[in-house]
């Protein structure tokens, strides 16, 4: 069940070209959604303005090498290990979802474009990695949804009162949950059930990528930029924060 390419098995009722076109459409949706979000909210103008302010307030100059090393640090810490989260549980849950999503997304694209039908046998590691990705997302995501959402855990909001901020996590979880359900149902063999669960999966996935403008997906791109800018500010002395105390750790 978990070792066969679920997308290849779709060809029973769906031509492979359909999924390939769908992938391309979703990529476009994310790009257009992010661009639209940036334009509509003037985010690009805002970042440019911030950069200008930092440069003006800078008291130290940075060499190209320094800047590059900061960029690498940002990628290594903020991007690779979700370093922006100070709460360890959130950090772990986010990493589970982030890397899970990477595995899931990349293997999906490889399977749909590289192994579109049952004609070419799919190497078994691909669907296994796909399922690992799916599981990581589900574990990290449901953990986050039920236990780690700050508006519920700290602000007293009821568990199932959904707000706009939940759009991303709900569409992600519903999409990936139905990916999993569809895979199982399809393996069991009932065609009608397969079509229905697959249909819901596609619906939720479209919602996920189509709602970039309103969800937090665009922050995937903003956050590393901001983290980079912050480190730059610290290094160039343009931060308005006091410098850390030079006292040795007392006690």
């Amino acid at each position, binding site marked *: 069940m978990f070792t066969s390419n679920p997308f290849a098995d779709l060809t029973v009722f769906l031509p492979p070209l359909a999924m390939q076109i769908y992938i391309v459409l979703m990529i476009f949706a994310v790009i257009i959604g992010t661009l639209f979000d940036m334009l509509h909210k003037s985010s690009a103008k805002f970042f440019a303005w911030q950069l200008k302010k930092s440069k003006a307030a800078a008291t130290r100059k940075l060499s190209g090498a320094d800047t590059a090393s900061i960029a690498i640090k940002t990628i290594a810490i903020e991007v690779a290990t979700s370093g922006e989260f100070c709460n360890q549980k959130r950090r772990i849950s986010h990493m589970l979802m982030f890397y899970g999503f990477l595995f899931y997304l990349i293997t999906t694209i490889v399977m749909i474009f590289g192994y579109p039908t049952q004609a070419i046998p799919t190497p078994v590691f691909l669907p296994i990695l796909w399922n690992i990705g799916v599981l990581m997302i589900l574990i990290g995501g449901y953990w986050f949804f039920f236990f780690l959402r700050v508006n519920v855990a700290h602000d007293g909001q009821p568990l*199932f009162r959904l707000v706009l901020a939940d759009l991303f996590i709900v569409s992600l979880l519903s999409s990936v949950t139905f990916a999993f359900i569809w895979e199982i149902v399809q393996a069991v063999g009932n065609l009608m059930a397969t079509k229905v669960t697959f249909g819901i999966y596609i619906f939720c996935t479209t919602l996920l990528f189509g709602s970039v403008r309103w969800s937090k997906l665009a922050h995937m791109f903003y956050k590393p930029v901001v983290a980079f800018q912050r480190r730059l500010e610290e290094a160039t002395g343009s931060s308005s924060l006091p410098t850390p105390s030079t006292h040795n750790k007392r006690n």
Partner: protein
Amino acid sequence: MGLFTRRKTVVVDSDILVIGGGMAGCGATYESRYWGRDLKIVCVEKAHIDRSGAVAQGLYAINTYMGMQWGENQPEDHVRYARNDLMGLVREDLGYDIARHVDSTVHKFEEWGLPIMIDPETGQYQREGKWQIMIHGESYKPIVAEAARKAATKVYNRIMVTHLLMDKTKANRVAGAVGFNVRTGDFYVFRAKAVIVAAGGASHIYKPRAVGEGMGRTWYAPWSSASAYALPILAGAKMMQMENRIVLTRFKDGYGPVGAYFLHLKTYTENAYGDEYESKWYNHTKELVGDYIDKLPVPTCLRNHAILEEIKAGRGPIRMVTKEAFQDPHKETVGWENFLGMTIGQAVVWASQNIDPKHTNPELTTSEPYVMGSHATCSGAWASGPEDCAPSEYQWGYNRMMTIDGLFGAGDTIGGAAHKFSSGSFAEGRIAAKAAVNYVSDMGKDQPMVSETECEDLKKTIFQPMENYAVGRNEIVAGTVSPSYILPIQGLQRLEQIMDEYVGGISANYITNEPLLTRGLELLDMLNEDLNCLGAEDLHQLQRAWELRHRTIASECVTQHTMFRTETRWPGYYYRADHPKLDDTDWHCFTLSQYDKDSRKWDMEKVPVHHIID
């Protein structure tokens, strides 16, 4: 509440319930554990104990420290000082009691980790003034809260206590309290053998000077919602000196503290033209208050009075002369750190307006009135005094017990003990706690019981504003204007305007008279009725609604007392224009009130002031 969920009730049993986790509450919690090793000690706080109360941002000085170990002061000296400052009217027994215990409290603070500045020459605590020592107190509250957390059986954060519960088996005895969880909306019933009220005094009962965002920059914490008074008032406890509101002269807009400036930096004030003005008003003030003007240091209210007169004469604003002092780098550092450790907002104001005291003498202003019990003022509940020195009229049972059995108080809650400040409030919490432990052990098997029906009724009452909003909201399209409910902020603004215009607020130059007070009571009565129509959209608004309820009943008490005392005892705090002079013949006494919540009647009486210190 969801469609399918019922509001949960949580019942918490304890031997001693401490209401409020501020300085007094933390002191009470700590001491309760010391004497009651096996007792269940519960502390309940509407915010978070680590930063709750007036000391949230820290303090730069401890204003009540005798220094007995170095022969600096004796407790009776402090009693004389507080008595003078309050124009003769303080509970000398309570003041003596706090003064003799405060030193050990401060020494414990130091042991726990509070950085107290040391005078390099003497090796003793760095004095700011005769009673004050200087501290690096940014973490004063978290340190003290740690001591309380180690002592308590449990600390409940984010639970607002709204009412006390009375014993259904014995008249006039407390049995606990009720409240609600500000995060979850759960109803809480605290059943206790003894209750120590250590809640906050009254800020935001008078219209503040700034009315936009600036409303938040009250001198006293905006979360001091008069629960210290409302809880005992509604339970029928006697209150004292509620007319004794305080007005403070502080730095303009930020209300930043001036103590370190006057005492340590040795700055002084002048009028807009650079002239000294206080001496100009000596004769005039003497006509009003007689020999009290000759006390040294000059009573706080009389210093205010001189400022008010000078401003009325058109020679304001009054400024603090800092240019000289700030040339000294050490003094400049103290001048700024004074704010950073205590009233950061003042630093923000000066930074925003480019005010550097090295080059500018900053403006001072007089604040709107506040009612509290731990500063240069002593409003609060009438409490029994220490067994060894309280006159018999001031003693009817356990130390710091109010006129309700088992109901103790500390800090702002207790009246008559002026100038206790943070350390004195903590010490008073300790005093009340030891007494409460004794009360509980003496009680034996005869324990109070709460009434289930009363709890059910209170549950409905507490959450009524949410019901009002949910139902009433259907009437209008949107917005804040409804004919059927008022929002807590609307009620608060109305309360503040009534008090401001009729009970001696800033727009009235702190002046009132009987016709104004009578009208004020009428308007307060209508407001009280309208509070049944409070509409709370969510739990945060519900907290605001109950804070308003507490503020309103406290304000009614303040107005009744102000009406009752037909003299002007504290010019500079407020004036009875129809009785403009101090009258020691008829009014060298305390005013006491007792409220009956069913008949809405206030019973006023005079009680003699016993001077036990010469």
